[in-house]
């Protein structure tokens, strides 16, 4: 029997109210010590990698969050029977417990910002050209002209990055006031200035939203575009050590890797 897994929760008791998951299957808790893994039974023939499947997965976790601290499990994580789940829970109980304590009563918000990169670059090029007299690179051969062109690109890229850091720093200053943790990615593409996730205590959600509106207002007129999403279960803040190399059982390695695969955002300390 395959078990589709939604979340690890901080309770070993059965879920009292009925919750239905993928394909309308009934959701239940498999206890281990004082925590549990919330699952539904799953047949391999069921094709649930659909938009409806994603929404059903999310809905189950949101329902669980009403009553428990949760560690959301990556969409479409399927374990091979009860023994498979219990084996994984036994190995990572301490890590799960620590995460549950850390993430209790906290939710995740996503913030994405597109900036007018073309205009900013154009402005930087014009500024560079005005100041160009300061840089004296001879251009009496094609090799030297190549270096001159590369140097211009290098300086403009540096200034572009400095500008991005400056904008992100200002925005993050407002958001961080109300966030417990954050993970930010700068310039994933030239236009996508910021792709960030913030972990916020439930009691500070409104303050966080207000900070967003405060930032959004004055920047929108300057060509910035914003996307705000949440509150979500804390998908990006489950921190598990990569222990899979220490595991001898290859099947268990696979299971563990499934659980931690969603940790793919890097920290903000580079900015």
């Amino acid at each position, binding site marked *: 029997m395959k078990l589709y897994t939604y979340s690890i929760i901080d309770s070993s008791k059965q879920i009292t109210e009925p919750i239905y998951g993928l394909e309308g299957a009934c959701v239940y808790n498999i206890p281990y010590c004082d925590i549990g893994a919330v699952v539904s039974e799953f047949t391999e023939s069921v094709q649930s990698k659909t938009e409806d499947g994603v929404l059903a997965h999310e809905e189950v976790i*949101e329902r669980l969050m009403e009553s428990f601290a949760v560690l959301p499990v990556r969409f479409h994580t399927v374990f091979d029977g009860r023994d498979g789940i219990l084996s994984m829970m036994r190995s990572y109980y301490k890590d799960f417990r620590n995460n549950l304590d850390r993430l209790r009563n906290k939710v995740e918000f996503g913030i994405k910002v597109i900036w007018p990169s073309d205009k900013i670059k154009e402005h930087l090029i014009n500024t560079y050209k005005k100041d160009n007299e300061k840089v004296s690179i001879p251009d009496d051969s094609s090799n030297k002209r190549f270096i001159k062109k590369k140097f211009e690109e290098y300086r403009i890229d540096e200034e572009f990055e400095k500008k991005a850091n400056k904008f992100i720093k200002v925005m993050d200053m407002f958001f961080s006031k109300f966030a417990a943790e954050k993970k930010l990615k700068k310039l994933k593409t030239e236009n996508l200035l910021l792709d960030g996730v913030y972990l916020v205590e439930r009691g500070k959600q409104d303050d966080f939203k207000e900070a967003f509106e405060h930032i959004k207002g004055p920047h929108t007129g300057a060509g910035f575009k914003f*996307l705000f999403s949440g509150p*979500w279960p804390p998908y990006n803040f489950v921190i598990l050590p990569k222990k899979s190399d220490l595991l001898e059982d290859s099947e268990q390695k696979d299971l563990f890797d499934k659980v931690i695969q969603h940790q793919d955002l890097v920290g903000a300390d580079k900015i």
Partner: protein
Amino acid sequence: MTLNSVVETDFPEEFVEEMEKSNDALPRKIDANPKNVEKGLAKLVLTLIELIRKLLEKQAMRRVEAGSLSDEQIENVGETLMKLENKMEELKGIFGLKDEELNLNLGPLGDLM
């Protein structure tokens, strides 16, 4: 208490486009299978060469900025970097690879370039 999650933006299509662009550029795995193993390996090798080429270029620019290169050295460095860039373009053309494909997602460490 339910979460009542929302996604708020006036520009959904632009955000989808940017996210797709960033995902396309950063595969989590090298796509190597019996049908395209040559291209998969070429992509991995060229990504590493591109990383080294960019590091060399950056180092050279820092030296230009510091004014520590003589006229003759600028000439030599220019020639070397230009040849490297041309050779990379040629190799990318042979294997049908674009600039944005030459990158790797290193998981928690971030992107290679």
